[in-house]
C-alpha cells in the first residue's frame, strides 16, 4: 500500500488498472477525458496490459463494452453528461444482456444550456437503466468503489453493469491523498472474471439478447433483472465488509455522519456532502442536533436502511443536485416513496434543489435549510420545494440579461434590416 496525491479522475483510472481490466472502449468528454488519457498512457508504456479502443460515439462505446463483457473479458469505460445520454439506448440494452462491467461517470450538468460543470441530472437519467450506481464523495472512495464495483457486477447473484459516479471538477480535478492498494492484493480482492455461461465460444454457441414475443417472457426477463439488482443490496454489504477487512476502509451503502442522536438530518449524494459535514459540525457547535446521511448506493436503492436510519427522526432536508422537470428533486421523490406508510417515518421531508451546474452551497445555506426544516416540523406544514438561489445571484443574472438585451438592440439599430424580416 502506498499513498499518492490523485485527482478523482486519476483515482478512477487507478481503480481500472488495479482491477486488471482487459478492455477499455473509450470516447473523450470533459471532465472525464483525463481517465482515458491516463489509461492510454499506461497501456502505451507497458505499465498496464489492456486494450483501449476509441469508438466513434458513446453509443458505440457502450455497445462494444457490453459485447466484450458478454464475450468474457473484464471491461472498463468512462463517460460524462452528454456522453451518458448519447449512450442511453445502450445502457438499457447491455444491462438486459446481463453484461457485467464498470462505467465511471464524471457527472456534469446537461444541455441546454450547455455547461461543463457538475450536477447529478445526467446520472439520474440512467437510474432506471439496470446499471447499479455507486456515488462517491472523495478520491479515495472513487478508487475503492471501482474495485468494489467489479465484485458487485460480476457476482453470480447480480451480473449487472455498475456506474461509479464522481462529481465533475469538485472531484475529477481535485487532488487528494489516496491510499493505493498493492496490485497483487487488489487483484486478489477483485478475483478473476468468470463469465460462466455468458460468453461466445465456437464449441458452445449461444444466442444472446434475442427477441421475445409477448408480454409474458418480456415481463419475466425484465423482472429477473430487477431482482438481480435487488440482490446487489446484500452482495454490496458482503463485498464492502470484505473490502474493509482487507484494506481497513468501510464504505457503507449509506454513510452516516453524526446522525445517531440527530433530530434533523440532511440527506444528499456526492462530494457536496463534504460541505454538509462541515455545516453539521458548525450546527452542532451552535447546539443543534443535526446530522447527515449520504447514500453511496443509489441503485439498488437502500430502502430498508433508510427506513431504519430515518425512523423516529423529526425532519429531513433532502438536497437534490438534480432536477426532474415538472416534479423536482429525484432523491426527495425516491426517499418519500421509501418512507411512505412506514411506521416511525419522519412526517417532514423538505425538498431543496441546489448545486445545479456546479453552483456552490454555502454553510449559511445549510443553516437556513436546517432552520426551514425545523420550522416545518414545529408548524407541521411542509413547504414547497426550494431552489437554493440568493438575491445577489438574481441581481447578477438580471445584469447579464440587461447586457444581452442592450446588445441585441444595438445590433438591431445598426444593421440594415434584411427585407424578409420587415414587419
Amino acid at each position: 500500500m502506498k499513498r499518492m496525491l490523485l485527482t478523482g479522475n486519476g483515482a478512477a483510472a487507478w481503480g481500472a488498472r488495479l482491477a486488471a481490466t482487459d478492455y477499455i472502449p473509450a470516447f473523450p468528454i470533459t471532465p472525464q477525458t483525463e481517465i482515458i488519457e491516463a489509461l492510454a498512457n499506461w497501456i502505451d508504456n507497458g505499465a498496464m496490459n489492456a486494450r483501449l479502443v476509441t469508438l466513434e460515439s458513446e453509443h458505440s462505446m457502450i455497445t462494444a463494452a457490453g459485447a466484450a463483457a458478454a464475450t468474457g473479458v473484464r471491461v472498463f469505460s468512462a463517460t460524462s453528461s452528454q456522453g451518458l445520454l448519447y449512450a442511453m439506448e445502450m445502457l438499457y440494452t447491455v444491462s438486459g444482456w446481463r453484461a457485467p462491467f464498470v462505467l465511471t461517470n464524471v457527472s456534469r450538468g446537461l444541455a441546454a444550456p450547455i455547461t461543463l460543470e457538475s450536477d447529478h441530472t445526467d446520472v439520474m437519467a440512467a437510474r432506471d437503466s439496470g446499471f447499479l450506481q455507486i456515488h462517491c464523495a472523495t478520491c479515495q472512495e472513487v478508487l475503492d468503489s471501482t474495485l468494489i464495483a467489479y465484485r458487485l457486477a460480476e457476482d453470480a447473484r447480480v451480473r449487472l453493469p455498475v456506474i461509479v459516479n464522481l462529481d465533475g471538477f469538485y472531484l475529477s480535478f481535485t487532488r487528494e491523498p489516496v491510499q493505493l492498494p498493492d496490485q497483487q492484493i487488489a487483484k486478489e480482492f477483485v478475483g478473476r472474471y468468470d463469465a460462466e455461461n455468458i460468453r461466445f465460444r465456437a464449441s458452445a454457441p449461444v444466442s444472446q439478447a434475442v427477441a421475445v414475443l409477448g408480454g409474458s417472457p418480456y415481463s419475466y426477463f425484465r423482472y429477473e433483472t430487477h431482482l438481480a439488482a435487488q440482490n446487489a443490496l446484500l452482495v454490496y454489504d458482503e463485498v464492502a465488509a470484505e473490502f474493509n477487512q482487507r484494506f481497513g476502509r468501510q464504505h457503507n451503502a449509506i454513510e452516516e455522519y453524526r446522525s445517531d442522536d440527530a433530530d434533523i438530518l440532511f440527506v444528499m449524494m456526492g462530494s457536496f456532502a463534504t460541505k454538509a459535514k462541515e455545516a453539521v459540525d458548525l450546527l452542532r457547535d451552535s447546539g443543534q442536533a443535526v446530522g447527515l446521511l449520504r447514500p453511496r448506493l443509489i441503485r439498488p436503492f437502500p430502502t430498508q436502511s433508510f427506513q431504519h436510519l430515518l425512523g423516529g427522526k423529526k425532519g429531513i432536508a433532502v438536497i437534490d443536485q438534480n432536477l426532474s422537470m415538472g416534479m423536482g428533486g429525484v432523491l426527495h421523490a425516491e426517499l418519500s416513496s421509501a418512507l411512505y406508510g412506514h411506521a416511525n417515518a419522519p412526517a417532514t421531508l423538505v425538498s431543496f434543489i441546489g448545486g445545479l451546474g456546479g453552483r456552490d452551497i454555502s454553510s449559511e445555506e445549510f443553516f437556513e435549510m436546517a432552520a426551514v426544516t425545523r420550522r416545518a416540523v414545529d408548524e407541521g406544514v411542509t413547504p414547497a420545494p426550494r431552489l437554493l438561489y440568493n438575491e445577489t445571484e438574481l441581481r447578477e443574472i438580471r445584469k447579464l440579461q440587461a447586457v444581452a438585451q442592450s446588445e441585441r438592440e444595438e445590433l438591431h439599430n445598426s444593421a440594415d434590416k434584411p427585407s424578409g424580416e420587415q414587419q
Partner: protein
Amino acid sequence: MTDTAETIFKRLRDLPSTHLLGTGTPMCAGCGGLQALHQIYDIIGEKSVFINAAGCMTLLSVFPFTPFRGSWLYTAMASAPAGAQGVRDALDILLQQQRIAAEEDMEVVVLTGDGAAYGMGLSSTSGAMERDLDFLYICYDNEGYGNTGQQYSGATPHAALTSTSKGPRGFSGFKKDLFSIWAAHEPAYVATVIGTEPLDLARKIDKARNMTGPRMIIALAPCPTGWDYDPKQSVDIGKLAVRTGIWPLKEYENGKVVHTKIPKQRKPVEEYLQCQGRFRHLFEPQRNDELIDALQAKVDSYWRDITE
C-alpha cells in the same frame, strides 16, 4: 465473368449441398434477404457469431428458437459494428492471453438491413472500417425500412412507392451509393451480391472469408412485402435486377473496382419495374415515359464506361 483463380466455386455443382441455416423462420415467403443469407451461411458456417441490428432479420432468433447453428447477439439499430468490435477485441484478448484455445475463435459477422447500413449505423460502420476491424458485414438491402412497414430509407430507389412516398412520382430522392462510400474507406473487400446469382455470391463470400480486415457485402434483397409483388416472382425479379443493369455485381479490392458480371445486352429497366407494385404508378393509369426514361438513362450512364 472474371474468373478468380483461388475460388473453389467454379460451377453450380460446387456449391454446398447441405444447408446450415434452419427453416421455419418468421421471414415472409419469397424473402430475397433470407435467400441470400441461406447461401452466405452455408459458406461461412457455424463457427461464427452474428451481430444483428434492428430489422426484419432480428426476428430470426425469437426466444427460445434460432435457425443459426453458431452464435448470435442482437444489439440495436445503430451500433451492430460496435458490437462486432467488442466481440472481436474480446476474442483477441482471450486468445492472446491463452484463456481460450485457437479453435474457439469465430468469424464475427454483422447482419443489418439497409436502413441501418445506409443511415443510422453508417457512423459505427465507418468507425469499424477506420479501425480496420476484422469482420464481415452483410447488409441485406430491401430498399426501405421493411420491419416498420417499408418507409423509404437512404437505399430506396428513385420513384419507388413506399409507405412514406405514396405520391404520383414515388420517392423523390436517389439511392445512396453505399458501395462507393464503403470503398472510400479502403477496407479489405467490398462486394455486391444477390441470392439469384448463387455462384457469384459464393465466390465472393468465400473470397471474403479467406481475408482479414473489414469485408463488406451488400446483398440486394427482393422483398415481396415491401416491393409489392407475388412471392413466387422473387427469383425472376432478382435476375432482372442484374440483367437490366439495375444491380451491378462488383467487387472492390486493393483500390480497384471490378465488375464480376457485366450483363450482355442489358434488358430495358422497365421489365424490372413493371413487375413490382412499387413502380406500378409508372405504368398505370397512364405510362410515365419521362420517369421511365430517366431511370433508364441513369442505368445507361452507369454502364457507359464499364467494359470487361
